[in-house]
């Protein structure tokens, strides 16, 4: 009997044995057992489903929690400083004067300058990879390299900027005759420009590849040159997608902390020109949060965080909306 089971073959005699063995009680016990198992499965199933729903809820709670924490913690500063906080031009915690305007300005100037510097490069990468050379080892190399730009930690960009870029900017400043500090808004914009290239480039590339080829072929058929096709078919078609990519880059630039903190110079006065040292919202939080000793001081810094949070949320959501509409059409 043993050998037959081992071989997986059930002999007739064994089958009879099995049948005769299963008394009504045994069958009932078996049925009860399997029923029990089914119930257990059903119970686990509903527990599992509930866990999944809870995890979905956790995401929503996390975001709401972040928002509420920022609001609650910045209430003291909103109450005592009011709206003029955002337009106050002087930041002097020792004298209890808090004005966020220098940081708002620093953030806007450095981010938009970075954006202006990076747009030609990121659009060029997008056109090159999306239109000129979608396949081959060289475009693959370019694509991977550009993606790796996004992978380098920002603290390393900051360190490199401090050691290499700042002296270069200082020489440049000597040449054009502004105060040669080196660190400042211009240096941080340069670093930011490098860091945000990949975001617009990779999105732009995938958008350009979505352009229907009949459109392009029709233009070629009319005798258009390659550049004319890009300018009057590809770019107009992908306008909103490129815009979304640039928006996402801007969101990155606004929130970037470490690299900017290391090269911007960290002074809380309104910058006189783009070469002057300054501070951004993120960098002032990074620098002063742990040494803020007064409740209003801490709260004022958190209000900056709240502004940063709201601005990046709005920018990201608009960007995502545009992408969704573009890819669904």
């Amino acid at each position, binding site marked *: 009997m043993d050998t037959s089971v081992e071989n997986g073959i059930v002999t007739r005699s064994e089958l009879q044995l099995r049948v005769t063995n299963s008394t009504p009680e045994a069958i009932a016990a078996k049925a009860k057992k399997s029923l029990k198992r089914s119930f257990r499965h059903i119970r*686990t199933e509903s527990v*599992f489903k509930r866990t999944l729903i809870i995890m979905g809820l956790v995401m929503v709670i996390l975001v709401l929690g972040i928002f509420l924490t920022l609001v609650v913690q910045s209430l003291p500063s909103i109450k005592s400083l009011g709206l003029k906080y955002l337009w106050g031009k002087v930041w002097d915690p020792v004298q209890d004067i808090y004005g966020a305007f220098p940081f708002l300005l620093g953030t806007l100037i450095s981010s938009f300058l970075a954006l202006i510097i990076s747009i030609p490069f990121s659009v060029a990468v997008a056109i090159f990879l999306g239109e000129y050379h979608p396949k081959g080892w060289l475009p693959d190399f370019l694509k991977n390299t550009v993606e790796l730009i996004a992978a380098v930690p920002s*603290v390393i960009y900051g360190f490199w900027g401090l050691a290499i870029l700042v002296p270069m900017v200082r020489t440049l400043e000597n040449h054009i005759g502004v105060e040669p500090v080196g660190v400042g808004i211009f240096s941080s914009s340069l670093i930011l420009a490098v860091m945000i290239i990949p975001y617009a480039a990779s999105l732009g590339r995938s958008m350009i590849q979505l352009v229907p080829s009949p459109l392009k072929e029709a233009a070629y058929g009319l005798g258009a040159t390659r550049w004319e096709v890009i300018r009057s078919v590809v770019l107009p078609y992908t306008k909103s997608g490129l815009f979304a990519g640039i928006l996402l880059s801007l969101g990155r630039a606004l929130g970037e902390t470490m690299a900017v903190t290391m090269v911007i110079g960290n002074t809380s006065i309104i910058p006189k020109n783009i070469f002057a040292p300054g501070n951004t919202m993120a960098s002032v939080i990074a620098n002063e949060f742990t040494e803020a000793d007064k409740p209003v001081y801490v709260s004022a810094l958190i209000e900056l*965080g709240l502004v940063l949070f709201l601005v990046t949320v709005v920018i990201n959501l608009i960007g995502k909306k545009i992408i969704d509409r573009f890819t669904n059409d």
Partner: protein
Amino acid sequence: MKADNVKFRIGKSYGFQALVTALAFACVIPLIAILFFIIKAGITKINWHFLVNVPKPVGEVGGGIANALVGSILIIAVASVIAVPIGIMAGIYLSENRKSRLAYWCRLSVDILQGVPSIVIGIIAYFWLVKPLGGFSALSGSIALAIMMIPIIVRSTEETLKLLPSSLQEAAFALGMPFHRVIFKVVLPVGVSGILSGVMLSIARITGETAPLLFTAFGNPYLSTNLTKPMQSLPLLIFNYATSPYNDWHDLAWGASLILLFWVLFLNIFTKLITRKWKVQL
């Protein structure tokens, strides 16, 4: 006249192609420059002593980054333990319930979470953990990093599972399998490659994060494995020592930068290779 015009247009077209190509390949320069410089400055600092010693006070030669290495690994490991189950489950929820109202809000939240600046996450972790627990701790740093990992894992899990043919699941259901077993025995094993690449990508993303750790893990000049106490990590060490005025510390930071850079690039390239091998789309 007309032929000249055509020639001009063709020339213009080639001109722009050259311009676009030049601009596109100019983007490679910064990465190469950073790699080159950091290898040049860091390679001489790295030896066995550098990896197994803790930093020495200013003025003494030698010293290493053992505390930062151990700290980084611990903080990231704890962050992954927290983020991976939550992220994968939320991703499963999103792919199984595409149309429900909660799924819409959940998806929106994940999008928002992905764009939140890292410094804001640092503030949040400070108020949620550091203040109630009464001091800087590695655990709070891990949770801050976990919050940054979650959206990446959720997104990659959802995208991977969405691509699986629904007949797979239907076949399993038809055999009478309960929902959780369908997920654990059919859906997850088939989608494991995509989910795993998402997890790796999220680890690569947080390895270099400094801002969330500034007010949470805080940094520690000594070797510590206590999760409830401040802990050093590689990016924190680089930030603190790079902005210090001492040359010895700069040297330490260069060596640490090289290790961090290779760690992150290795993770990224490895992820890229496995996604290509397994033909996963992220």
